[in-house]
């Protein structure tokens, strides 16, 4: 899979989504009875509701419940991990999770359905991904752009910003949301087969592909990146990290990014333009103020990554 191209990855991801999602609701109908005995008896009567539901109120990404966001995020995360291998360095993973969860608590959305969790990816690429709900992935290449713990914190805070603003979910095309969140929004949908099921499957497949292709292949809009940078600055200030860490990381990244690369060079606005935007809120760059102890533990934990 490591040699698989992005297009192949996304294409196959889409096919898996079709297979899994197509059969999912059927199995769901069969198994949910164990824990939800009452609902099976109402499936037939729910069928009528589902049709009405699909014509009901106009829905947006905000109507995706945290529970659904969680399951979407898990699958998106699994797809990221199908493309990138995890970097199994327990010390580094623990360090990132303590830091990341501390930062998440200072965000505007500290609580998600399944919580925030962080993982390193064994890749030289400069990249980071935030799956909906709070699963965050950072490549080793990205770690190497961080000279300070404050910079590492800035990377995590930026990704938390994407989760907080639900940028992943917003990648789902609005045209799909009406059918996805209304038809699927009914328990009775589990009873359907045939045409309705295939429609649901298609909608789910498309929604997940929307997220992975935006997140991994095309990147978010400049305004989303700006929003995530603003959230990062706020979180860093609240926790007590130097927001210049974000600028420092972007400066290093600018030197390391290869033009035409498939990582941040492709999916993010240029570091220079991001720095320009960030400096509007934090002022001119000043060297990162980081105490010796913080510098030492950062080096100790991540220098060999």
């Amino acid at each position, binding site marked *: 899979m490591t040699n698989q191209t992005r297009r192949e990855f996304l294409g196959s991801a889409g096919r898996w989504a079709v297979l899994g999602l197509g059969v999912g609701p059927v199995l769901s109908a069969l198994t949910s009875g164990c824990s939800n005995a009452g609902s099976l008896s109402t499936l037939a009567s729910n069928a009528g509701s589902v049709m*009405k539901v699909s014509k009901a*109120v106009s829905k947006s990404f905000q109507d995706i419940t945290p529970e659904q966001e969680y399951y979407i995020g898990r699958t998106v995360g699994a797809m990221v991990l199908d493309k990138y291998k995890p970097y199994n360095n327990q010390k580094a993973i623990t360090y990132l999770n303590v830091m990341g969860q*501390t930062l998440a608590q200072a965000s505007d959305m500290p609580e998600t359905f399944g919580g925030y969790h962080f993982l390193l990816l064994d890749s030289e690429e400069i990249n980071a991904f935030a799956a909906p709900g709070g699963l965050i992935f950072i490549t080793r290449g990205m770690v190497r752009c961080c000279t300070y713990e404050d910079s590492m914190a800035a990377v995590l805070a930026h990704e938390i910003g994407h989760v907080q603003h639900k940028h992943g979910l917003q990648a789902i095309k609005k045209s799909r949301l009406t059918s996805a969140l209304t038809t699927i929004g009914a328990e009775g949908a589990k009873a359907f087969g045939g045409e309705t099921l295939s429609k649901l499957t298609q909608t789910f497949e498309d929604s997940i592909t929307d997220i992975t292709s935006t997140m991994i292949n095309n990147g978010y809009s400049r305004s989303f990146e700006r929003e995530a940078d603003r959230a990062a600055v706020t979180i860093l200030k609240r926790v*007590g990290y130097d927001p210049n860490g974000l600028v420092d990381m972007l400066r290093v990244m600018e030197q390391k990014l290869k033009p035409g690369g498939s990582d941040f060079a492709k999916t993010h606005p240029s570091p220079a333009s991001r720095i320009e935007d960030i400096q509007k809120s934090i002022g001119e760059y000043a060297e990162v103020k980081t105490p010796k102890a913080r510098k030492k533990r950062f080096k100790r934990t991540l220098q060999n990554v």
Partner: protein
Amino acid sequence: MNRFKVPILTFVLVCLTGWGVYAVGQKVMSVQVKQGCVRSTPSFLGKIVASLAYGDRVDVLEEKDPWAKICVSGKKCEGWMHVSALTNKKIVLKAGAEDVEKAASSDEVALAGKGFNEQVEGEFKKKNPKIDFAWVDKMEKIVVSQNAMQTFLKEGGVNPEGGAQ
């Protein structure tokens, strides 16, 4: 005419204020996360005094943005929850036809387990054994205690300016 103005305005004000207090006292919300922590103080530094499950209904006693003081009727459970763990919607765990209708036509009800749920994921895994969720599961098991976070901040000389909300 003026002599009536003050008492009328006072009455209106009292009514409005009284209604405000009444309204807050009556507010009921639902836990929208897998595990909702109830804390002794409106801060993540507050001791966890109880843990609530997804869909649990709570009465809001007081609001101190972004925290809400809650209690659970019939239970000895009172404390603070971050509002991001709560929703105004009623989360229906076992939906009947009426709930489906309600969820469709209003924003007051949400159905648990709708759409992409555990069963869908289970089938997805079965059909796509190449997609491995093992590391996703491992990630979710990483739990960091509040103490570990405090020690981390202290040892790194990171001084929150109200960071721990």
